[in-house]
């Protein structure tokens, strides 16, 4: 007599199959997760309990980078306590996960050409997206930015599924020296896409969004907020939208850039 169970059980313990360092401070953890691998949509996330005990109390949200067979991959960067804990897990360990959560990228019918713009770890939610788009026959242009060549994470994947791949690095060690927004501006003009997908630091997403919208191209962004519950209950993670505040964990993390109020003072009350 479970009242209003809107969904299947979302909570489970997953076995770590592998946890590989791919460059300084960045790793990919592979989890045995048949249920999620089968149902996750690009841009959705899992909410992971990375530590034991209460000293790292809250879960951490991580995008599903790729899903294949019975496993999912998470691309992570060691930033603080939670991701440090995650980096210490090894094959055979178990992790407690909730997911898949949130609304992912929308792939409208009839797309022929999509521009994906990833800055830094913004590459994480782009893996499945790029793969699915190319499987559907959509031409993918990919603009990737990072501090240096070794941080162009998942570059091999992106190059392999993209029609066109261009990158920039802060130090010029690969691609053009400078910001990925310069690359995206160039690609937008040279090869106008039907849609732009952006993920990365918020200032970068905001800049890409304004480039796209100015060019009359729809744009989706995946916004990060600190999340406590991850399931829509606590209102930790709100994003200002034209419809009022919305939850990054529930209505998001992907939003239509045209709906996002980037400046908090624009946000109307209510929900």
């Amino acid at each position, binding site marked *: 007599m479970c*009242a209003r*169970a809107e969904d299947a059980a979302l909570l489970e313990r997953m076995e770590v199959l592998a946890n590989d360092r791919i460059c300084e401070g960045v790793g990919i953890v592979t989890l045995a997760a048949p249920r999620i691998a089968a149902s996750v949509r690009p841009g959705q996330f899992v909410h992971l309990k990375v530590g034991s005990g209460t000293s790292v109390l809250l879960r951490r949200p991580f995008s599903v980078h790729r899903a294949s067979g019975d496993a999912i991959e998470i691309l992570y960067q060691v930033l603080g306590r939670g991701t440090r804990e995650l980096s210490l897990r090894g094959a055979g360990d178990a992790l407690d996960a909730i997911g898949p959560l949130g609304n992912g990228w929308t792939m409208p019918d009839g797309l022929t050409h999509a521009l994906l713009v990833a800055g830094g770890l913004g590459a994480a939610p782009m893996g499945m997206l790029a793969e699915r788009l190319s499987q559907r026959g959509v031409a993918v242009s990919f603009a990737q930015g990072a501090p240096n060549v070794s941080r162009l994470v998942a570059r091999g994947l992106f190059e392999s599924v993209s029609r066109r791949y261009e990158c920039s690095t802060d130090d010029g060690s690969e691609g053009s020296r400078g910001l990925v927004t310069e690359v995206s501006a160039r690609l937008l003009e040279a090869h106008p896409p039907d849609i732009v997908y952006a993920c990365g630091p918020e200032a970068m997403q905001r800049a890409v969004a304004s480039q796209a919208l100015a060019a009359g191209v729809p744009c989706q962004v995946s916004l990060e907020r600190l999340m406590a519950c991850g399931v829509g209950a*606590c209102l930790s993670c709100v994003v200002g939208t034209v419809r009022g505040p919305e939850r990054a964990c529930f209505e998001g993390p992907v939003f239509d850039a045209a709906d996002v109020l980037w400046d908090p003072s624009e946000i109307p009350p209510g929900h």
Partner: protein
Amino acid sequence: MVDMSAKIGSLILRNPVMTASGTFGSGREYARFVDLEKLGALVTKGVSLRPWRGNSSPRIAETASGMLNSIGLQNPGVEVFCERDLAWLADIDVPVIVNVSGHSVEEYVAVIERLEREKSVAAYEVNISCPNVDAGGMAFGTECAPAAEVTRACRRASSRPLIVKLSPNVTDVAAIAKAVESEGADAVSLINTLLGMSIDASTRRPRLARVVGGLSGPAVKPVALRMVWQVAAAVRVPVVGMGGIMSAEDAVEFLLAGATAVAIGTANFVDPASTTRILSGLEAYCRDNAVERVADLTGALVTEG
């Protein structure tokens, strides 16, 4: 069979495990993880007369065994709350306790007046202790006179069970509990969050946009237990205990300190099935320890010998 019922004024709950306001939405999001009909009561997030936008982001910061929040009582206002949240809850067999907020005594009363028209409300929890709004909120809860005044006005507005939620950010929580009891509160609940702050040494900025926020989670449990114990010794009305409850053992500790019921807050974020897990654990504790009625645990702390 253990008798798990708990009595809060005229309200008889099937068990003493409730949700803590603001940590469980209106239940809908957690219905995927727990059977809401198993809960002793569902306490909704805070509701005000008009929509509140809440505070800017970041709204949370993790601390050692705890978290700070400065949500700021974001809510769509009582009208939308009735139409959307209460309507959804109407089909679910669980006592609904609505957590009521206001910037002024009049606003608290106006919210209750609107809710009086709703059949599905079992009780009110009057929040005079939110540290995250400027006017109202905690200001009412840190001195006896305004706490008493809000209680008196809410009492006049409804004959439903009235729970007043107390702030821990005070010198003498028992005095405030007595003040609200004498104005007709049927129960008190505590603790709300402890006012705290977190700073990022590398950016030299506060981690919360609002600078300060409310501390919850295991870190606050010792303070919460002490306050529940002090308040239970000072008042005759039932006490709803909360603050850092993560396990059935924690819940037992609050009952022993004098609570009649307990509320689960931050734990929901860590384990979304916390409420029912704690409920089963509590029942098991009673069974294993030959406690026939969970109510027998209330105040059963042994302090002599």
